[in-house]
């Protein structure tokens, strides 16, 4: 069974050398192996691990050895990759594993009571009951629901259930064929996304789908690049990098290039990309195709987080439909341009949303970030110039192509152009994704989302890598320039509201724990610093030590993390903690 799963990804072995059971005719004539062949298929390592995990529920020593033989890659390296990911198990696990979110947005919505009940009925996180177990999970990107489960099902499709109750968890772990059960997300204001039948290319085209690609092919790459530059579009994934600069940099390179959609949305409190992919999969494919055409790439990747089974299956079938209809392939829309997209699934590692870690993950290495420079536009995926954009960033592209860069730039403020999606969650009346022109304030957004449930305690802007603000900052426009002037980051558009009933010590501790668990471990500041930060916060909370000393340690950690970490994960790992201290949420002298 394990072999079948692996052969599905890697094809049947054609020789004794590569794991066949019987000798074949070529065996006497052909030499196998070598460095080159090992590199050519290494990118299939994670898909092969996924296949075994999905069919069997864990990756045994035998399965790992067979994968190693087939890729080929050394077993130690394959083990290093497998153990990097939360969703790949190298110890036997039951056939059903329910990952239940206990992260900050769900905490604000009261998940701790649910988990206490769950613990009483099913035992602690990680306890096997029959053929199932539940585990605590970092944010599952279902924040507007207030509770969520992602269930790995051996021999079947993984499912999402949100919101989720204790009874539902117990049912999923025991029924024959569990199915996803997710309440539809509240409307994305200002778009017609909900009119599209996600399974129908025709429906997408009826709503104006693929007209942007036709126009793009008529305009030619240079005009598209000009429009992207003129639009002032900046990255929506957190770094806010001007898209025009990136696109032009890649377009100016020669040789093989890649475009990648970063759909590894894992920032706690962020769920807009999931909603976009679930409601408009064709739109993303169209946007990435335009990007590939503009910069001169013939291969695109969508790297989607492993905990998004619904978005994954919709994208997967949309890709098939687009391919069949000639919108992907050797001659895209009869425009004389070859382009195709591969869908790659993450396996439970926040770090893989960092673009260079994402490259390593696709290439079949541990998802560790690379030291920059060189930048992805020069040397990215497989060492080639690569354009990486977040889902939301790309989703703006069709409109820019159709209406021109200036029209897009007319929306928003001086430095923040266009519409922006915000993820409202926590203690608000109607949590969900809200689209507004840049310039809206936190207060505007909370009003849109039905106001605050209870009295305002604090608001987290930008996610775990963001910062807390209080009532005094409610009128701060959520633009790149205003948040920067205020020394906080807009991040991925998280507006997570906590009322005064929320235990903020718990929230800050959970953020620190998140970074300690998600640190890849490559560089010292982040590997040890995130754990020290967590410990120091625990001491600060339990008391008995000198508060000033502990705050001093946290400040030293803040410096070393920001100054010396390799990548954005470490550099942002102390931001929320420091902001919580600065506004007096934690660390007040007792």
């Amino acid at each position, binding site marked *: 069974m394990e072999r079948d799963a692996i052969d599905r990804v890697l094809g049947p072995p054609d020789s004794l050398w590569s794991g066949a059971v019987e000798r074949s005719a070529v065996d006497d004539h052909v030499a196998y192996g070598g*460095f080159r062949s090992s590199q050519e298929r290494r990118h299939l390592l994670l898909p092969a691990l996924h296949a075994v995990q999905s069919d069997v529920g864990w990756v045994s*020593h035998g399965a*790992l*050895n067979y994968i*190693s033989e087939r890729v080929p*890659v*050394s*077993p*130690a*390296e*394959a*083990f*290093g990759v497998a*153990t*990097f990911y939360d969703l790949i198990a*190298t110890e036997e696990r039951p056939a059903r594993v329910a990952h239940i979110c206990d992260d900050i947005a769900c905490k604000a919505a009261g998940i701790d009571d649910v988990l206490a009940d769950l613990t009483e009925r099913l035992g602690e996180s990680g306890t096997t009951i029959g053929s199932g177990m539940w585990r605590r999970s970092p944010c599952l990107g279902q924040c507007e629901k207030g509770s969520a489960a992602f269930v790995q099902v051996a021999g079947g499709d993984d499912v999402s259930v949100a919101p989720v109750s204790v009874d539902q968890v117990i049912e999923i772990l025991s029924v024959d064929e569990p199915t996803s059960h997710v309440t539809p997300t509240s409307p994305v204001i200002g778009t017609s996304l909900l009119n599209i039948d996600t399974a129908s290319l025709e429906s997408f085209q009826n709503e104006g789908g693929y007209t942007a690609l036709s126009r793009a092919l008529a305009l030619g790459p240079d005009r598209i690049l000009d429009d992207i530059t003129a639009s002032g579009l900046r990255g929506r994934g957190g770094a806010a990098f001007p898209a025009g600069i990136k696109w032009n940099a890649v377009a100016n390179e020669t040789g093989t290039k890649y475009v990648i959609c970063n759909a590894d949305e894992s920032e706690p409190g962020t769920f807009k990309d999931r909603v976009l992919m679930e409601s408009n999969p064709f739109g993303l494919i169209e946007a990435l195709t335009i990007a590939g055409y503009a910069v001169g790439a013939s291969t695109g990747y969508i790297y989607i987080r492993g905990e998004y089974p619904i978005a994954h299956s919709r994208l997967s079938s949309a890709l098939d439909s687009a391919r069949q209809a000639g919108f992907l392939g050797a001659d895209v829309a009869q425009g004389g341009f070859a382009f195709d997209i591969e869908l790659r699934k993450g396996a439970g*590692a926040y770090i893989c949303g960092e673009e260079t870690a994402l490259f390593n993950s696709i290439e079949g290495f*541990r998802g560790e970030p690379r*030291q920059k*420079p060189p930048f992805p536009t020069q040397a990215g995926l497989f060492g080639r110039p690569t354009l990486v954009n977040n889902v939301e960033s790309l989703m703006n592209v069709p409109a820019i192509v159709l209406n021109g860069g200036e029209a897009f730039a007319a929306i928003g403020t001086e430095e923040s152009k266009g519409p922006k999606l915000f993820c409202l969650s926590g203690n608000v009346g109607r949590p969900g994704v809200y689209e507004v022109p840049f310039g809206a304030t936190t207060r505007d957004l909370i009003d849109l989302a039905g106001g605050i449930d209870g009295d305002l305690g604090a608001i987290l802007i930008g996610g775990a890598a963001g910062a807390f603000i209080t009532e005094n900052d409610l009128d701060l426009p959520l633009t790149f320039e205003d948040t920067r002037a205020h020394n906080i980051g807009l991040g991925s558009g998280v507006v997570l509201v906590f009322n005064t009933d929320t235990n903020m010590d718990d929230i800050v501790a959970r953020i620190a724990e998140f970074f*300690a*668990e*998600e*640190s*890849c*471990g*490559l*560089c*010292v*500041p982040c*590997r*040890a*610093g*995130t*754990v*020290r930060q967590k*410990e120091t916060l625990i*001491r600060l909370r339990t008391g008995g030590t000198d508060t000033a*000393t502990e705050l001093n*340690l946290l400040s*030293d*950690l803040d*410096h*070393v993390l*920001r*100054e*010396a*970490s*390799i990548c954005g994960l470490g*550099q942002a790992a102390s931001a929320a903690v420091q902001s919580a201290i600065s506004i007096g949420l934690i660390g007040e002298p007792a």
Partner: protein
Amino acid sequence: MIESPVEMPASLIDITIDGRSVAVSEGATILEACATIDVEVPTLCYLETLTPFNSCRVCVVEVEGSRNLVPACSREITPGMEISTESARVQGIRKTVYELLASTVDMSLVDEPTKQAMARYNVDPDRWGTWARQHRDVKIEDDLYIRDYDKCIMCYRCVAACGPDAQNTFAIDVAGRGLSSTIATEFDIALPDSACVYCGNCVGVCPTGALMFTSEFRMREAGTWNETEQHVTTTICSFCGIGCNLELHVQDNRIVKVTSPLDHSVTSGHLCIKGRFGYSYVQSEDA
């Protein structure tokens, strides 16, 4: 006749290091540039024979215009670069980095330059508590070398030496994630069951004594290891015709360890099982 390839001389780039103007060859790293004027930058995971891994962050320096500190070991110089190697900002970060390491693992056997650097930056690991210190049993699986991962700083040198930078055996890699990650074979099987060919190149590059000749480990255990009484004899390995330089570390007239010089053109410090461990015949009574 041997023809030596004629290389174009690299063009020189003007940069500033700690206020001094210097011209350094294009393509050099900050660390190499500093070495040309004898400015010492502490390193830990860096080794000149291996690809920089950027993991320890001890060598970070300040570069004018850069938001973060940059690792000297891997960053190439660019024209007009202004580098400060010992600013207060740099010193503060190095102190914390050393402390984070020393509060996590046992650094008692690091080399002298590292010990001096740790003293210079007033490193005080105790202020971090000892919660995250890990305790793992020393792995003694054979008579050749031991693995004591309580001393491992995860510098990745052994992985590089076992893999693409020297041996191409790939018997070990990093497994797991974050602070609990470790160097391991697949499923942590014992070395004799793994792909390990016992070249000992991982031992040769280990900076903390986490990997050690079993002979040295036993002598340290017995309290008889004494480097001041050891002398080093340089010789050439007699097992084959390649001509690897060996450094025989001898104590009480017995070979206790074998290394090879990093700057040796044949070995770059790397050996095979015979050169590294095949010395017992020298001290056989029957010889």
